[in-house]
C-alpha cells in the first residue's frame, strides 16, 4: 500500500513491511518519518543540531510525567484521561499554597508535592467514583469534568484569600496573577541537579532521573499483584470480576494514581518552565499528553512505559523542531498547523480503530 516500490520484488519483505505498518500504525510511521526528516534537515538549514536536541530533551523532561499519568487509566480500561486538568489543578493548588506558606528554594518544591498529594487523592477519588457511575462514557465526561473544574478554579483563584505579594495582583492586593514567576522558589530545582553541559548540548539530569524514578515505580507497580489485577480489569472486566477482583476499586485506584501523577507532572513542568500558569492555562493540557502517548504506540486500552518515552520524545521533538526548521526552510511558520493536525489526527486514528475498541 504505502511501502517503497523496490520491495515489490520481494514478497516476504513486503509482507513483513505491511505487517509492520499495520501493527505500528500508518499515522505513527508518518510522524516518526517526519521527525526524522526534521532532524536530518536541521543542520542544513542552520538550525544548530545539538541545540535542537537539547531543546527536545528539555521539553521531554518537562512533559514526560504528565504523559505517564495516562498509563494507569488506560490499563484499568477507563480510556484516555481527558480529565487530566483535574490533576493539574491539584498540582497548582499545591504550588500556590506552598509559596503562600512562605517556603522557598528546593523546600518549596517538596512542600508543593506534599500539599498537592492529599488534594489530588481527594479529587481523584471523587473523579474515580464518578467514572465508575458512568462506565462506557468515560472519555467525553472526563473531558468535561476537566473543563468544568478549570473554569470553576478560575473563580477560586480570584476569590481564595492568597496574600503572598509575589503571587497576587499588585494594585488590588488580592486575586492571583495569571502567571507567577518561580524565581527564588523551585525554578529549575530538578533540572540543575547534576546538569550536564557539553557545548550547546545541556541535559537536565535531575528531571530525567525524577521521571525515571516515577516510571520505574509505575512499571514495578504494574507487576505487583494489584497492578496485574488492574490490567485484568481493563482487558476483561467480566473475567476479572469472576476472579474475585473488585473492579470498581481497581478503577478508582487507577484514577487516583493518574490524578496524582498529573499533579506531580505539572509541578515538574513548572520547575522546568520557570512559571506557574493559572486560570485557563490548564484547559487544553490533556490533549498534548493524550496524543503523545498515542504517538508512542499506545492505544485506547493498551499502554506501556516505552510508549510514554517514545511518544513524549516524538511529540516534543515535533513541537520544538518544526518552528525553527520550517521557518528556515520555507519562511513560513506552519508549526502550529502541523502540530494540531498531527496530534489531533493521532487521537482520531486511535478512537476509530475497531480492533482497539474497548468493551
Amino acid at each position, binding site marked *: 500500500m504505502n511501502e517503497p516500490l523496490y520491495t515489490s520484488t520481494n514478497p516476504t519483505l513486503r509482507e513483513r513491511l505491511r505487517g509492520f505498518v499495520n501493527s505500528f500504525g500508518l499515522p505513527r510511521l508518518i510522524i516518526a518519518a517526519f521527525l526524522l526528516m526534521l532532524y536530518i534537515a536541521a543542520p542544513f538549514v542552520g538550525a544548530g543540531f545539538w541545540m535542537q536536541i537539547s531543546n527536545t530533551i528539555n521539553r521531554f523532561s518537562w512533559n514526560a510525567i504528565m504523559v505517564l499519568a495516562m498509563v494507569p487509566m488506560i490499563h484499568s480500561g477507563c480510556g484516555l484521561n481527558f480529565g487530566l486538568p483535574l490533576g493539574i489543578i491539584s498540582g497548582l493548588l499545591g504550588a500556590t499554597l506552598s509559596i503562600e506558606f512562605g517556603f522557598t528554594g528546593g523546600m518549596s518544591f517538596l512542600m508543593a508535592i506534599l500539599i498537592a498529594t492529599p488534594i489530588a487523592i481527594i479529587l481523584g477519588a471523587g473523579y474515580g467514583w464518578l467514572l465508575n457511575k458512568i462506565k462506557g462514557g468515560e472519555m467525553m465526561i472526563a473531558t468535561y469534568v476537566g473543563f468544568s473544574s478549570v473554569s470553576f478554579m*478560575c473563580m477560586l483563584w480570584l476569590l481564595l484569600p492568597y496574600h503572598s505579594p509575589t503571587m497576587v495582583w499588585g494594585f488590588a492586593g488580592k486575586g492571583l496573577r*495569571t502567571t507567577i514567576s518561580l524565581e527564588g522558589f523551585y525554578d529549575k530545582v530538578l533540572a540543575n541537579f547534576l546538569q550536564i553541559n557539553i557545548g550547546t548540548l545541556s541535559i537536565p539530569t535531575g528531571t530525567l532521573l525524577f521521571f525515571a524514578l516515577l516510571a520505574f515505580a509505575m512499571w514495578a507497580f504494574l507487576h505487583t499483584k494489584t497492578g496485574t489485577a488492574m490490567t485484568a480489569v481493563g482487558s476483561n472486566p467480566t473475567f476479572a470480576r469472576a476472579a474475585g477482583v473488585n473492579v470498581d476499586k481497581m478503577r478508582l485506584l487507577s484514577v487516583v494514581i493518574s490524578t496524582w501523577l498529573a499533579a506531580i507532572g505539572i509541578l515538574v513542568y513548572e520547575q522546568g518552565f520557570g512559571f506557574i500558569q493559572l*486560570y*485557563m*492555562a490548564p*484547559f*487544553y493540557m490533556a*490533549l*498534548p499528553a493524550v*496524543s503523545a502517548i498515542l504517538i508512542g504506540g499506545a492505544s485506547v486500552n493498551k499502554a506501556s512505559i516505552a510508549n510514554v518515552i517514545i511518544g513524549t520524545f516524538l511529540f516534543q521533538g515535533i513541537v520544538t523542531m518544526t518552528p525553527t526548521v520550517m521557518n528556515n526552510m520555507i519562511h513560513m511558520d506552519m508549526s*502550529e498547523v502541523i*502540530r*494540531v493536525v498531527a*496530534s*489531533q489526527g493521532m487521537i482520531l486514528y486511535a478512537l476509530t480503530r475497531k480492533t482497539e475498541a474497548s468493551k
Partner: protein
Amino acid sequence: MNKTRKLLFRVGAVLLLVLIAGLMFIVGRGHTVYLDNKTLEYEGQTYSALYKIEILKNGEKVAKLNKRERGMATNIGQTCKLTLVITKEKKGAEETQEIELKLPYSMDGIIINLPGYLSGLPEDAYLTEFVSTAETETAPEEEINTDEFGFSSDMDAPPEG
C-alpha cells in the same frame, strides 16, 4: 418515485441553486460611489462646480455638497439611482433631477464628477476608479472584539494540541 425522476429532480435542484448563486453574484456586487462637485477640465472645456448639490438615495439624504466637496454613497448592483437637488447659483432656484448611473462591475470604488455628468459628457470623462490608499497600508491589525460571549483576552485558552 422512480430513479430517473429522482435524479432529474436532484440535478434540477443543483442547477437552480447555481442559477440563484450566479444571479446573486451579479445583483449583489457592491460599489462605493464617490460623488464629486468639482470643476472638471475636459477637451479644453471647463465644467465648473455647482453652488450646492444635495444627494438623496431611496429618499434618504446621503450627502450635501458645496463647491469642491466630495460625498459618498454605497450601492448594491450596477445601476445607482440617485435624486439630486441642485442649486446652480447662490440664492438660485432649487432644481430636482433623477439620475441613473451605470457602474462598471470590476470597480470597488468609483468617482463620479457631477458637473461633468450633468453636462452630458461621455463616461470616461466623468467616471474614474477610486484607488484606496488603504491598499498599501501595512499597519498592524487592530483587535476587534467579535465574540458575543465577550471574553477578555486573558480568558482565552491557549491553543490546543
